[in-house]
């Protein structure tokens, strides 16, 4: 198994599909089956390859020199964290393709070509082990996503599509600057350094000034925060979700948000522990705002899909809270949240999609009494909404538990240093409590939505709706099965990536102790002066 270039197959197979699709005859049924078989094969392959390589103790990695004079090489590899997300990606792509049966009619060839290009871009991001390759695939997913939203979307699709692209591109500006800065520092430390993750991760350990570290951390972090999305940069998500067709918003919520959190964990938190420790208070603060504020906004939404979009923004706040806890439990919780939120949000959007294909409206006011008319959809909606609510024995609960336990038991910070030496007396424990309130608010808007949409008397105009079609039921059943399985036996999922993620969190306990020791009791850990000039960065 190891001589097979496993990872490159996974990355470039979808691209091959994307090249084949335009040449197929333009017949709806054929295109659907081709894509289903294709994505199915991709999913099976990803599981087999995972079992064959990393699970069997031989982590897969491929290397090919590309532009040696610039230190750029085609360097891909996968540890269990990447594999879990790769399999989640291929699974959700399969689900999205199945969901496209009912919701996509026109220009199928371009549609499937774009979906497969998008898949290869996302797989590329998760499997990249060279910062250039990572950045290349990170920008590659922009155009397919733009076209997918702007051609098959809803009424205001073009505005939403361009907003999505410009937001992400704006983020990647600072990411590229940080990448190049990091490479410069690595090169000045050791002239043979390349863009490989291995070389760049050791940079912060070689006594880099905290100021530079924080700057590099923030450069990378902005791009990931926009993708997460973090509160001030989140307004693209509701627009993109509302306007995107169902399969695309499943992919968008299911996987694209994970690119942001994956990047945060592996790059920002993996490479700059000191900077992360200094910035943890602010991350947790924004994470809490992310949870509570968007839960409030979600309640006031009249559009069902926007409500679900804001709920996924709120849920991604947990990732920030988990990462900000700076301990193994919090990190594991954040990664678990990525997986479970992927399944749950895909499920929720599938539900909204099935309703939309029948009623062609997304205004909650116009909906009512679907429970009686669409019993199967009601059953799945109930199950997935409860999972999103964080009900135990369903997908969401283990993630929330780990994040809350991790954050509450962490000694990341007692106070948040604020401007001009003043201090916000908000310890991580208080912020966790406030986030827990956010969860209760979350329960409120979800239950209220269930009540208004599914319960109550049947509206006369919806009395003749027909229940879910087999393909929809299959998708919903597959997602629900996984959500229940993850909920009942969380150790199955968490034990896969637990070792890697705990290793990532390992340096932080020492780092926190150092930071607290470095700042005398009353004093606040102030970020040392921004030292950035070339020579200072270079000297050891």
């Amino acid at each position, binding site marked *: 198994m190891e001589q097979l270039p496993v990872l490159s197959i996974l990355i470039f197979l979808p691209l091959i599909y994307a090249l084949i699709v335009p040449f197929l005859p333009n017949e709806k049924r054929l295109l659907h089956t081709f894509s289903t078989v294709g994505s199915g094969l991709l999913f099976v392959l990803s599981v087999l390859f995972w079992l064959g390589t990393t699970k069997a103790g031989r982590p897969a990695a491929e290397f090919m020199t590309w532009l040696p004079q610039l230190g750029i090489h085609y360097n891909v590899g996968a540890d269990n964290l990447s594999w879990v997300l790769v399999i989640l990606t291929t699974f959700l792509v399969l689900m999205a393709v199945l969901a496209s049966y009912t919701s996509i009619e026109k220009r199928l060839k371009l549609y499937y070509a774009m979906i497969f290009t998008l898949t290869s871009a996302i797989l590329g991001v998760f499997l990249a082990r060279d910062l250039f390759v990572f950045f290349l695939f990170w920008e590659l997913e922009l155009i397919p996503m733009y076209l997918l939203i702007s051609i098959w979307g809803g009424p205001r699709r073009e505005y939403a599509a361009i*907003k999505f692209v*410009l937001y992400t591109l704006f983020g990647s500006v600072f990411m590229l600057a940080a990448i190049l800065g990091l490479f410069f520092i690595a090169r000045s430390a050791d002239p043979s350094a390349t863009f490989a993750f291995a070389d760049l991760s050791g940079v912060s350990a070689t006594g880099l000034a905290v100021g530079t570290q924080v700057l590099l951390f923030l450069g990378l972090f902005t791009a990931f925060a926009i993708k997460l999305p973090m509160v*001030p940069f*989140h*307004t693209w998500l509701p627009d993109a979700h509302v306007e995107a067709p169902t399969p695309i918003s499943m992919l968008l919520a299911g996987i694209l948000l994970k690119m942001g959190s994956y990047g945060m964990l592996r790059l920002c938190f993996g490479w700059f522990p000191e900077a992360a420790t200094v910035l943890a208070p602010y991350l947790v603060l924004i994470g809490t705002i992310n949870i509570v*504020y968007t839960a*409030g*906004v*979600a*309640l*006031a*939404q009249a559009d069902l899909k926007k409500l679900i979009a804001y709920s996924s923004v709120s849920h991604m706040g947990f990732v920030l809270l988990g990462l900000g806890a700076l*301990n*193994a*439990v919090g990190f*594991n*919780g954040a990664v*678990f949240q990525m997986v479970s939120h992927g399944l749950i949000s895909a499920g929720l959007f599938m539900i909204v999609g099935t309703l939309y294909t029948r009623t062609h409206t997304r205004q909650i006011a116009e909906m009512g009494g679907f429970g*009686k008319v669409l019993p*199967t959809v009601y059953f799945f909606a*109930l199950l997935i909404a*409860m999972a999103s609510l964080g*009900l*135990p*024995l369903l997908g969401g*609960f*283990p993630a929330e*538990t*780990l994040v*809350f*336990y*991790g954050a*509450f*038991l962490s000694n990341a910070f007692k106070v948040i240093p604020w401007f001009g030496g003043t201090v916000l007396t908000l310890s991580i*424990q208080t912020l*966790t*409590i406030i986030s*827990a*309130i956010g*969860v*209760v*608010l979350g*329960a*409120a*808007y979800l*239950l*209220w939505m*269930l*009540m208004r949409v*599914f*319960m*109550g*008397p*049947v509206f006369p105009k919806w009395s003749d709706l027909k229940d879910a079609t087999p393909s929809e039921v299959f998708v919903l059943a597959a997602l629900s099965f996984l959500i229940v399985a993850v909920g009942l036996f*969380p*150790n199955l999922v*968490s*034990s896969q990536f*637990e070792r890697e993620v*705990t290793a990532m969190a390992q340096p932080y306990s020492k780092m926190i102790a150092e930071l607290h020791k470095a700042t005398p009791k009353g004093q606040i850990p102030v970020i040392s002066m921004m030292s950035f000039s070339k020579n200072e960065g270079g000297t050891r």
Partner: protein
Amino acid sequence: MSNAVQDLVWLIPVYPLIAFLIIVLGRWTGLLKPMSGSPFVILATALGLIHTLLFLGNWGPAYTAVEQNWTWLQAGALQLPIGYFIDGTGMMMLLVVTSVSLLIQIYTHGYMGHDPGYSRFYAYLALFNFSMLSLVLSSNLFQMYIFWEMVGVSSYLLIGFWFTRPSAAAAATKAFLMNRVGDFGLLIGILTLLYFSWTYWQGLDPQQLLSFSQMDGAARTALAAAGPVAFTVMAILIFMGPMAKSAQLPLHTWLPDAMEGPTPISALIHAATMVAAGVFLIARMYPVFTISPNAMMIIAWIGALTAFVAATIALTQVDIKKALAYSTMSQLGYMVLAMGLGAYSAGLFHLMTHAYFKAMLFLCSGSVIHGCHEEQDMRKMGGLMKYMPITGITYLIGTIAITGVLPFAGFWSKDEIIASAAEQPLLFMIAIATAAMTAFYMFRTYFMTFHGTYRGHGHPHESPKVMTMPLAILAVPSVILGFALSGFFGLPAFSQYVSFGHAHHHDPNLGVMGLSILVALGGFLVAWLMYGQAKVIDPARIASAFKPVHTLLWNKWYFDQAYGFFARNIYLSFASLSAWFDRTVIDGIVGLTAGTVNASGGAMRALQNGRVQSYLVIFFIAVVLLTVVLMWMV
């Protein structure tokens, strides 16, 4: 055989889970006919009961606690275990839950016989059984929190069973939300406990995290680490869970609305089992509560106030199920009061007896409603004793039991609680006053429904055998259970099996016994005078005499209106404010930047006026400016 039963005790909750899966998959794949599925559930519960009895059978004289743990979720240093733990209290709860739910499920077959959602209802019942039994068996606080919420969601499903009725949907959402508020408190309580007692748990085997058997050691470490004030706050936070679950004062308004659900579940969930889970949690977490006196005092006062307020509201209720709901709330108040006062076994004893006779009362009200063709308003009933003798008699037995008249179960358990309240004069007075009111409003409901002439339409008929037989069976424990475990005349005392720390049995306080019987009879007399044949005192006149008090009670102390106000004004406005902020401010800034870029683009574009000479002027100015700027700069 004995250790097989013991090792497989975790199967008890699994039987209903299997039944639930059979029905769900059966209905989905169409193998199961629409109106079937109940035999699986009833069989599962029966198996649970038999298994419990077998377990009890060879549990041996010492009744030592049995515990077994596995790791459910492991991440970094945290290992969250799951497992089973049975001691006296746990066995008592097991017996109550399995027996009561078995009888209710049999009764439901009659009550829901021709309801289209029959199999869905049984599926929900099975799910509830699974959650409740797992809650009772859970070996640690984390696991209990899991099934705490599972029970909450099953009650949401069951209350909102007839979801096409908007009021049922609203009641279900309200119940679940209020439980979520309670769960929030419980979660924060657990986290704080874990935070302060982390060093203690590190010392133990990781699978013992938060387990009840080690709770007293953890409690002491937490008290030492946190200091009394923080510890009390933590205890009250944990108490918030039971406050919502057992409908204690601030978080109680969901219970009366929960009557929207079908009556069998009112009996099962909102009388016998789920609401008792709150008291059960207090029992399990007793080591934490006992070592902080002011926490115990707060719990006692909340219990007392709930009992008192619920009793006062029950006085004016006209809907039979709402009256019984408020009486449940009042009795739960009693149990919490007992726990608050340290009377551990008294509280649990009352829980046990109350479970039986309250379930019976609810089932009677169910058969009354069934008989009077879905009529719930007592003013449209009356004289039903003639038409429904069995229901009538069982209802009378229940009423006597709950008022605590001598031979019946209610007396022994309630008397112990009142006795334990003896030291606190104020609490004692509230307890006695509530006992009086209980007697009054219970007999009021009895007389209004079963005595006098029938005021409703149509003609009521006795419920079928399948519904009246469970009533008869439930009547037995309501009568003898109290006496059987009172510890008199050589009979086994309840406190021998179910107690906290040393099983002390203080001798009965005759004075208190006498007083409580007297008060009960007084209440009966007043009720008889107002509503019985005598009709001496006209209730309307009394109502007008105490007008302000009556309106206060009629409006259920305005709690609903207060919560409604909070929800609409504060919470919704926060939501719409943040939605507005999100749309205008954040999007505004984004729009602004895009706008300035466009505008500046437009402005620079205007510079391009098409005349070469103006271009050349700019060319020349640029050369000059560059020279000047660079001269100044370099």
